[in-house]
């Protein structure tokens, strides 16, 4: 099983910081218009959200694993709900590599695998070094092209 790049934790912690900031802005708005919110309470809530977010990020990194099995791409992930997913190569519709500005700054990429499943089942593997992401995309593409299905779905 392969893990993600450790730097992905920074990205997820960053998301926690943003969430904490949103909570802070909402509470500030409540304080302004509706009722008094003591500054200590505001700081406590923001701090708590941040700590929870950081703990979540670190735990998520610990459990996130994937591997290429003979017939399928297999992933394990999830903190609250632990999910093990298998995507047979024959079901891969197309593959993306993506990175957002923050991922780019951290030198990371994501690989996104699309299937024809309902609910637009797409599987995202975040936090890979760009060359590994590229390599995985090539591998998955080759496996998808090779594997036979007489109709696309």
């Amino acid at each position, binding site marked *: 099983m392969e893990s993600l790049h450790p730097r992905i934790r920074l990205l997820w912690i960053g998301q926690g910081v943003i969430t904490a900031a949103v909570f802070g*802005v909402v509470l*500030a*708005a409540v304080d*302004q218009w509706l009722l008094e919110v003591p500054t200590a309470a505001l700081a406590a809530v923001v701090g708590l959200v941040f700590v929870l977010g950081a703990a979540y990020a670190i735990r998520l990194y610990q459990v996130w694993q994937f591997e290429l099995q003979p*017939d*399928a791409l297999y992933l394990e992930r*999830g903190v*609250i*709900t*632990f*999910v*093990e*997913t*298998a*995507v*047979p190569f*024959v*079901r*891969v*519709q*197309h*593959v*993306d*590599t*993506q*990175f*957002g*500005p923050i991922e*780019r700054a951290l030198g990371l990429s994501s690989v996104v695998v*699309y*299937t*024809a*499943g*309902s*609910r*637009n*089942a797409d*599987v995202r593997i975040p936090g890979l070094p760009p060359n590994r992401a590229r390599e995985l*995309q090539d591998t998955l*593409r080759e496996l*998808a*092209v090779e*594997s*036979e*299905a*007489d*109709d*696309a*779905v």
Partner: protein
Amino acid sequence: MNRLHPLSAVVYALQYGFVWLWIPVFLVVVLSGVFDPIRAAWMPLFALAGLAFGLVYGVAYYYRFGYQVTEDTFDVASGVFARRSREIPYGRIQNVDIRQGVVQRLIGLAIVSIETAGGGDTEASLNFVSEAEATRLQNEIRRRTAGAKNRRRRRTERPMADTPDDEADLIGPRRPPEMRRDDAMSDPDLESLGPGTGAGDSVAHWETPTETFAEPRRQRLFDLDSRELLLYSFTSFRPAAVAAVLFIFFLATDTIVEFFLTVAQPVGGPADLETGTTGSYGVLTIVSLINGIVITYLLSVAYTFATYYDFRLGRIDEDFVYERGLLQRYSGSVPSEKVQSVTVTDNPAQRLIGYAGLWVETAGYGPDSNGGSQSAVPLARRDRVYSFTENLTDVETPAFRSPPTLARRRYLVRYGLVAAGIVAVAFGFTQVTIFDRWYLAAIVFAAVPVAAHLRYVNLEYYVGDEHLVIRRGFWRRRTTIIPYYRIQTVSTRRSIFQRRLGLASLIVDTASSQSFSWTAPTIYDVDLEDARDVHQTSRNRLQSALRERADADDHGLSVDFT
């Protein structure tokens, strides 16, 4: 990498410029209300900065967008800050569209869209390229797609690698195996075929001859007779009727209130809305509520009746064709090759009288409101539905397994929490109104064990040789038959609570549009080992089904409907 037509740069710049003009304006307005140092006077400055940024971004987007036709994929790379590079194998491309608006035709531009299977957005959209380039791309991709499809051996026929066991129906009578292929519910009377009934020569086989140049013959499979239609109308309820009733109420509020008053008067309702006692208002409320429910129900019945009036299902070659409707005749066809899964549905009322319906899921999005799922048999006697299902899918009679009883405990807790929520709402209600006996709401707790048990007993699954059968739901019980060959992804999920009890849910995704419910077929709350076992089995059998189909070409086997 090829670039888009230079004019696209102008269009993108204008689009993004307009969008980014408004974002800072909105932000300044909102934030200036919250934080004192931010002033509304900054708005024009920020708006101009936003516009400039948008223009630059649009041009940059054009320069950072590239597409390429390669050996075995069509590649698209896009994005300025967030990059995305996409590779679409030719074998997976469904269609290439060229669209041109009026303005685009004048200046000779076109939008090329490339679609793969599965719902959702267009996978690759090139706006704009020149007309010549669009045509070139379309031809190029078409040529390569055809090449990719030729390389994979064309298979128009499917294997029938299973031998139907003669465990006949789930519930119905046992029939010899040769009978299972020709009684296709075309028999107009309601009597299900018992052993020996009409067991003449079984020449009418499901398999069509490989000769397809002959005149296609329409074969009747099922006609909904009037009794079934009435039963179906009266035993099914359409939520849309509630919306319709509310709509009518808004249109003609006065008339309806008048009507309610008139109806409630004989049983002690008020003379009019202004003069009444608490008691008479109570009577009016109850009578009106009953009226409302009855009217809604009748509307639902009428709607179902009109929709499924004179429903017929037939077969022409490899397609199922159906038509239905009283006021508006609706007909369509489902290629059997595209059937993803088959679902038997029934609600408590239908189970009571021993009836069920059958739905077929395809990967497409039909013109009908219910997406890719089509009713094959709206309602018929359960045993006939099951035998029809077996004919359709060649699934053996399921020997269902249940989740462990531990699962029931979860539902007890879950519904207990719901009940507690209801009581809490009732308590809140008494705080702001004249009512004060909130504890009466605690009666809902009596329903908790019943609800938990009913949910539990309707959860079943069966791991067959060729199919997975998943049953769930009480109010609308669905028994979905999924051929392993149609599986897209399998996931084993465990929430915190499930992990504590060592349970897991298995989600089996197919390409059907899942109009039935927003959840893919799921086996809920089985032991983790069992879930992993089914997970692995499904994967293995998908692979073996793929191999079988590849081998079957060499033998030219005939058609079945999985």
